[in-house]
């Protein structure tokens, strides 16, 4: 009865969250006195999962699964869970994981808890800590079903090296046409740029930037830091930036290591969406902006002067620490 983990990859390369969920699974397996079995889809370097704690990799190689398909992937994972007699299944909090986890939960009549921020409080009973109320609170949640599914929050547990040697086995359950009734027609993904979901650093702009023409410096700052760009709700509502950049309670959640807010006042709905970030920096000309109460570091000043200066200082810092 190993701990099963779904490891995500894109074009053959594992995502960072694959290593994080494998690390988390290793911790749970240790607590339960068992080992970790990972399931990978068309990935190249399966044995690398051993570094983070997987003893076995069920390798799925199937051209029909090149593009993520929630139902088909969930069927494969359900078959893998049966083959391994897995009682605990670990996955991430990516859009794909959150899409397939409920399908898997229904198939296995399993309790599913997403947004988990730490290793289980206890494994008998099985209790995990998760965020609730859009990051305004935490809940200790017990999962009492025979099979348990845990969705780990990005950057919450971290990537841990455990250096296990992983055996790789081919795994290829047959899937009916029914598994592909929801078809991907076209994927439009930004390439070569950090995404809000998995970036270590997010740089975000608000109404204080006065107009879309002023986003050049936000993008430049993000470039220097290798960060993803984001924006507040009013900015996406006014069409200055695409919806996909909107972070906050009704937008994308952010759980980065560093979040830099420029010209964002810090409405409670915005803070809810970004609160899971570890370090928050605010740059705003209004010292009364509520964001200053939620931030770790702040500069009261004109963004149009502070941000270019910050870019210069970061470039100098990079040159010195290269």
């Amino acid at each position: 009865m190993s701990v099963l983990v779904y490891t995500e990859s894109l074009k053959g390369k594992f995502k960072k969250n694959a290593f994080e969920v494998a690390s988390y699974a290793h911790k749970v397996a240790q607590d339960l006195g068992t080992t970790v079995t990972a399931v990978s889809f068309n990935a190249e370097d399966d044995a690398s999962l051993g570094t983070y704690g997987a003893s076995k990799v069920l390798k799925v190689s199937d051209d029909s699964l090149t593009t993520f398909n929630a139902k088909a992937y969930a069927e494969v994972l359900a078959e893998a869970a049966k083959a391994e007699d897995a009682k605990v299944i670990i996955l991430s909090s990516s859009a794909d994981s959150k899409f397939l986890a409920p399908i898997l939960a229904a198939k296995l009549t399993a309790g599913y808890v997403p947004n988990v921020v730490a290793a289980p409080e206890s494994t008998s009973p099985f209790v995990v800590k998760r965020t609730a109320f859009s990051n305004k609170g935490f809940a200790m949640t017990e999962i009492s079903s025979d099979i348990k599914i845990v969705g780990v929050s990005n950057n919450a547990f971290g990537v841990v090296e455990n250096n296990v040697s992983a055996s790789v086995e081919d795994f290829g359950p047959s899937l009916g046409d029914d598994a592909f009734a929801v078809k991907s027609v076209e994927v439009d993904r930004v390439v070569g740029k950090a995404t809000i979901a998995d970036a270590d650093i997010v740089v975000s702009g608000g109404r204080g930037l006065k107009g879309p023409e002023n986003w050049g410096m936000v993008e430049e700052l993000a470039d220097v830091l290798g960060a993803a760009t984001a924006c507040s709700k009013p900015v996406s509502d006014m069409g200055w930036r695409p919806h996909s950049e909107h972070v906050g309670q009704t937008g994308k959640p952010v759980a980065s290591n560093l979040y830099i807010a420029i010209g964002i006042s810090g409405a409670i709905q915005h803070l809810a969406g970004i609160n899971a970030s570890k370090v928050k920096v605010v740059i705003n000309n209004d010292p009364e902006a509520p964001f200053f109460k939620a931030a770790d570091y702040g500069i009261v000043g004109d963004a149009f002067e502070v941000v270019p200066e910050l870019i210069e200082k970061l470039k100098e810092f990079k040159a010195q620490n290269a």
Partner: protein
Amino acid sequence: MKILVCISNVPDTTSKINFTEGDTQFDTNGVQFVINPNDEFGLTRAMWFKEKQGATVHVVNVGGAQTEPTIRKALAIGADEAIRVNAEPKDGFFVAQQLAEVVKNGEYDLIIAGRESIDYNGGMVPGILATLLDMNFVNTCISLEIDGDTATAVREIDGGKEKISTSLPLVIGGQKGLVEESDLRIPNMRGIMMARKKALNVVEPVDATQPTQDQKFEKPAAKGPVKLVDAGNVGELVELLHNEAKVI
């Protein structure tokens, strides 16, 4: 086309969150409840299908009698009928099983729910519901067109979007993008008057499993004061982020 919109009754987005009874319950004292924002985008899209394509729109909520003002608001926005499953929503799996029963009895073609509720953030109800009913399912849906039995949807993915083709019957986990913020409707007096006359059918819950249980809640640790850096000394911020916060 017969559409069921699943609505959750949640604290207003500006609510302060507190817990009571030894931190085992959410403190509803002084809290305003609203239609879950992700559900409201779906409800508004359903109104479009009603007006442009002649769809019938029902709304459903799993909750006690205290959720009826929120259900009435959905009727005032324009839903034709409402159903309330008379049970406390114990967890996502429990709620999905209650909704599955409502769908079976109502023969719906399209079920629209929010991608998650902003209170417990489980995000599992639409996916479990679809799987229990063996219906197609698209999550984090930001665009939806229906033509006969064919559905074309766009879903938000990490770092982009994906166009999807599928068919009815279909369950949607919706969010902003299904309609824009500016498309949301504030009920007018006529809508509110008409809502009073519309059917709000209360049904009793079916036996259902509840695999998870929140045992205790806590609030995030209080934050220390912000460390201010002078606007004329931006280099200090770089120092602090490197040496103290260790994030660059």
